[in-house]
């Protein structure tokens, strides 16, 4: 009996008990969907976030107030001692042609005419922000040095702000209200997209000086530092630390590059992907046990048939092959159906949520197919072996 013949016999047996075959398959289908979708989503989110972080600029590093991410003992809640003076000091003393761009963040309500918009990120920046962040203006112009020095009430808005306040009309030259004060719109930034769950385009940029005055704050949220040459990054970061240590203690600030943030994130996300995959794999194992269960029942139920086949000359191995093929077909078909459903699910998801981009990972598919075939074989072997070893006389006598 060759492989094709045994496949034919198995398919025939599966067809004769359609509902049962379907239900057995369902266990595998659900397991495969769980593995493929969860791993794909996890990988998709990971690549999206990696892309966003890299999009921030690879030759960018930041100075945060306090000691972030230094493990046990770090005091996140200590007073923010990072001041504008430190930024000025860095500007004076830093080499490597770095661009120092201090930033303050505040959340506030904004309004244009009768349209108002709550909880918008207000970012106070210096004139070099656009350069340091590699983020250009699309319409109008960015704020100038004089605007900063003169505490002017001018602003540049993000794409999302433009859409919610101005729809399609040109906002340049109009007046909007930020925290109750009137600001003149100088320009609109190009779109930058999402960072984690934060919409970067939902932002209003105003002069740093103005921001500190209207919000009554004198410290900085963080400082962006852009190095023109990537190779200079490690040295520039060392230098920044040294300069800041003149006036601040080691606990008062943290210098971190995008790369470090990225690698920390990647570590967490790989762990998450593996965990999600492992949890999903449990459902595949449950599916496999379902196969074993049904195969055992099926062998008992078809004892007579096995007896007949043996009387007609079937070898132990041929009976084993027949039942094993059945188990493998169930799990393989389950795997294929599961993957098709995954594609359908992703298609529907991306149809309803265009921003949600998940590409089904080929790795996940390969793993799911191999794993489900392995399950079929592993859990099919024992019942199939039992079927093959049945004594023909006993089997023929079975009613």
């Amino acid at each position: 009996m060759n492989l094709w013949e045994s496949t034919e016999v198995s398919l025939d047996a599966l067809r004769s008990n359609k509902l049962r075959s379907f239900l057995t398959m369902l266990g595998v289908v659900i397991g495969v969907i769980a593995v493929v979708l969860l791993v794909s989503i996890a990988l998709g989110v990971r690549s999206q976030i990696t892309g966003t972080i890299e999009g921030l600029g690879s030759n960018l590093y930041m100075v945060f107030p306090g000691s972030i991410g230094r493990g046990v003992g770090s005091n996140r809640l200590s007073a923010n001692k990072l001041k504008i003076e430190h930024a000025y000091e860095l500007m004076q003393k830093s080499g490597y042609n770095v661009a120092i761009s201090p930033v303050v963040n505040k959340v506030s309500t904004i309004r244009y005419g009768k349209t108002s918009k709550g909880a918008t990120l207000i970012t106070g920046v210096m004139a070099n922000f656009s350069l340091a962040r590699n983020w250009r203006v699309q319409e109008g112009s960015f704020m100038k040095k004089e605007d900063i020095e003169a505490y002017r009430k001018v602003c540049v808005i993000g794409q999302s702000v433009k859409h919610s306040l101005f729809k399609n009309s040109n906002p340049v030259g109009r007046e909007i209200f930020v925290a109750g004060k009137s600001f003149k719109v100088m320009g609109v930034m190009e779109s930058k997209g999402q960072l984690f769950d934060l919409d970067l385009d939902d932002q209003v940029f105003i002069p740093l000086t103005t921001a500190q005055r209207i919000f009554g704050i004198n410290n900085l949220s963080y400082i962006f530092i852009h190095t023109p040459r990537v190779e200079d990054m490690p040295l520039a970061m060392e230098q920044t630390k040294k300069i800041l240590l003149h006036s601040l203690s080691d606990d008062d600030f943290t210098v971190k590059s995008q790369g470090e943030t990225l690698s920390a994130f990647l570590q967490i996300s790989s762990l998450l992907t593996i965990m999600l995959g492992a949890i999903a794999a449990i459902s595949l194992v449950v599916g496999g046990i379902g196969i074993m269960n049904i195969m055992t029942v099926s062998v008992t139920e078809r004892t007579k048939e096995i007896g007949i086949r043996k009387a007609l000359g079937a070898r132990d191995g041929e009976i084993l092959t027949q039942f094993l093929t059945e188990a493998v077909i169930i799990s393989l078909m389950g795997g294929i159906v599961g993957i098709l459903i995954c594609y359908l699910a992703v298609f529907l998801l991306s149809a309803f949520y265009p921003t949600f981009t998940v590409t089904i990972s080929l790795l996940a598919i390969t793993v799911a197919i191999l794993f489900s075939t392995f399950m079929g074989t592993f859990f099919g072997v024992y019942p199939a072996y039992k079927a093959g070893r049945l004594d023909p006389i006993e089997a023929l006598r079975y009613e």
Partner: protein
Amino acid sequence: MFKIYFLGKDVQVPALRGVSLTVKRGAFTAIMGPSGSGKSTLMNIIGCLDQPTKGTITIEGIETSRMSRSELAYVRNKKIGFIFQSFNLLARANALSNVMLPFVYGDYPKAKRRERGMDVLESVGLADRWSHKPNELSGGQKQRVAIARALANNPAIILADEPTGNIDSRSGLEIMILLQALNREGMTILCVTHDRFIAEHAEMIINLLDGKISRIEEVKERKDAREELKKLPKEEEITQ
């Protein structure tokens, strides 16, 4: 030839205790005996479904008593044609597929399987029913399909275990007609039965008792199934 079953630790059940017999090629032999006499065990051993505890058995010069399981399967496929009391057809498969089943386990050329299957169905008079499933056939027809299946691989011997046990007497005689016809064409037939009337269709009757041969008798007035069928009342008479 001996066959002893071991049940548990110390319980031994001797099913055959020293049976010695030779069946000549082309003979039609019946085996009779009460239940427990060992006739099923003897059939199973001859049919290569089982092996003797002691002694040897040879089919067409090949000793099967020391063969491996897969060698036995090969002999069953090539040399033995089984006919069972309960037909033992696959319920899912139609008559032709049932007849072709032995080909799956042999090396019968694929292109000729269908032709050969139809030929043997023709020889039992069921060619026109080839697509019928067992539950669409009468008891007698099922047994004829089983005979066709037994013939498919052109075996050395046909082993019939109570072939008429589950069917009415008219169909039973039709089965005996077929077996006698096959025997006339040279087929070796061994038929187990507890029915003396059926046994007398054979040339020789071997009587078994308690695992031993008690008596071997030549059938003096051998019955011809065709004549016996004529003696039966017509079907209309039964229904009246």
